[in-house]
């Protein structure tokens, strides 16, 4: 069944390190309130957090859309940032263009995108230089791990 039970969209502002992480925290709260399996919640939060941080670090404006059906949880993170030139490279573990300052704050170890992919049951990254980037991730709810 694909009927949507729940949908929420959040906007994210680039460079806003103060608010960074709030969307992921909110999604986590919702999922936890809904009593979803802790492992599932954990995976969803990693995806939301890493994608949100990428928007904060590399793009100017973006949105996180979170939808829930009876069997899947979907996250779509879209931004109007600079885009990614070499997607394969960006998906490589450890690859990062983060600044020293970002690293000092504990981000930018080049594990974001790889971890998003690892934690998704279905993952898709579309990007166009100068236009923006969209990350789509899906987690199956009844996939007994």
């Amino acid at each position, binding site marked *: 069944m694909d009927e949507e*039970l729940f949908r929420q969209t959040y906007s994210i502002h680039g460079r806003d390190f103060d608010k960074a992480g709030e969307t*992921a*925290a909110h999604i986590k709260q919702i999922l936890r309130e*809904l009593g979803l399996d802790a492992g599932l919640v954990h995976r969803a939060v990693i995806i939301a957090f890493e994608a949100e941080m990428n928007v904060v670090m590399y793009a100017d404006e973006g949105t996180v859309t979170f939808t829930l059906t009876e069997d899947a949880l979907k996250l779509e993170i879209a931004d109007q940032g600079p885009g990614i030139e070499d997607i394969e490279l960006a998906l490589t573990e450890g690859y990062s263009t983060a600044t020293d300052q970002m690293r000092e704050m504990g981000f930018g170890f080049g594990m974001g995108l790889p971890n998003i992919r690892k934690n998704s049951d279905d993952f898709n990254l579309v990007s166009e230089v100068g236009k923006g980037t969209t990350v789509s991730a899906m987690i199956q709810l009844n996939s007994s791990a």
Partner: protein
Amino acid sequence: MPELTHGFKIDRDKCDGHLACMRACPTQAVRVREGKAHVLPDLCVDCGLCLTACPSGAIRAETRSFAEFDKFKYKVAVPSPVLFGQFPMAVGPGHIVAGLLGMGFDAVWDFTVELALVNRAILDYVERWEGPFPLLSVSCPVVVRLVQVLYPSMVDQLIRVQVPRELAGLEAKQKFSEQLGIPPDDIAAIYITPCQAKSISILKPAEGAKSNLEGALGISDVYNNILALTHTLQEDQVQLASNHSICSGAMLRWTINEAQGQILQRHRYMSVTGLANVIQVFDDIEKGKLRNIEYLECDACWGGCIGGNLTVDNIYVTRSKLHRLLAEVPAAAPQVQAEVERRYPATDFSLKGRVRRRTTNDGPTDLRERVRRMKVEEAVTRALPGLDCGLCGAPSCGAFAKDVARGTGQRSDCVFLREGRLRELKTTYLSRRKKPPEIGEQFGVSPPPA
């Protein structure tokens, strides 16, 4: 679900429904119905703030009496170092130990060695841990329960190293059992605790195992006894007690906040005290911040354990005394270091069970129904003023909305949603007054008919 033991009891007859406990509770575990407070046990973390807040004296901490330990042949006091900072300066560590012996304890255990052992184990653990960070201290049971209830995703960050008091209980029993040739079961190791939470954690450890301690007595329970005895003590008794053990600087320093910072000097260490502050920091951790901190020492009481609810003196006085004591006692005896070296490799620091999230399994299994509840909650929230007045009997509009969605609260309990509610509250509360409000009457306000 296993039954939860809590150390605080509300006396219904004494409760005046003042809402103070409900407002003080950091986990929103108190509700007031028909003018009487009650606790939602799943949410209670044993912090004791309700007890401090209650103006009617209706909440009390369940304590044990010394007599309850009479069935043991040999009783060992394991005093929290906090005890030594509680007395007037003239009452030194020797007096305090002699006082405990005078009360009927057969021995007093100095856990300097266990503190040093645990410090070392923590350092080792931090150095070996691969994440996620920060690791969280477990010596404060309220913090452990807070994580179980409100931050379940962080339970694996609770450091899996046994606390000094537990190691001390085990070691004390082993040692005296060998020395006296009696089975360990005949020996009681009794913690002298600065707070109720630790005594509950001994009765019911968070990891679901059995404690190495037989129970606890509050510092405030032994204080008067010790003080009274110190007047009758002979100088040689005090001297004997001083030699007998106790009180190196290392042990006292532990009670002064940020003690572990010294051990973790080369690591990113942070200390937070006060439950509200701990909650703020945990919220940040949940948001993915503070990943750079390796070890977070957290205490529910502001200022650390010297601020515990079973202490006698206020924390500033205690701290000042501890600093003076520190100047007088030897830092750490060389034999302590030797003991640590000897025991470290053979000590099992692991917790005997796993600390798990505490589930509040009140929800339906059907996702659709759960989403429906959440939407009800949102709708109710939108209809509420957000003033958190508490007159519905829930601590906040948010908590009330949740109660309504869950079916444990009713919209009609909100004075904004139903005017009759205020009239009912007047009846409940004003009719309880013993004297009529004379001043009110002067101004033409009369109490409603009972």
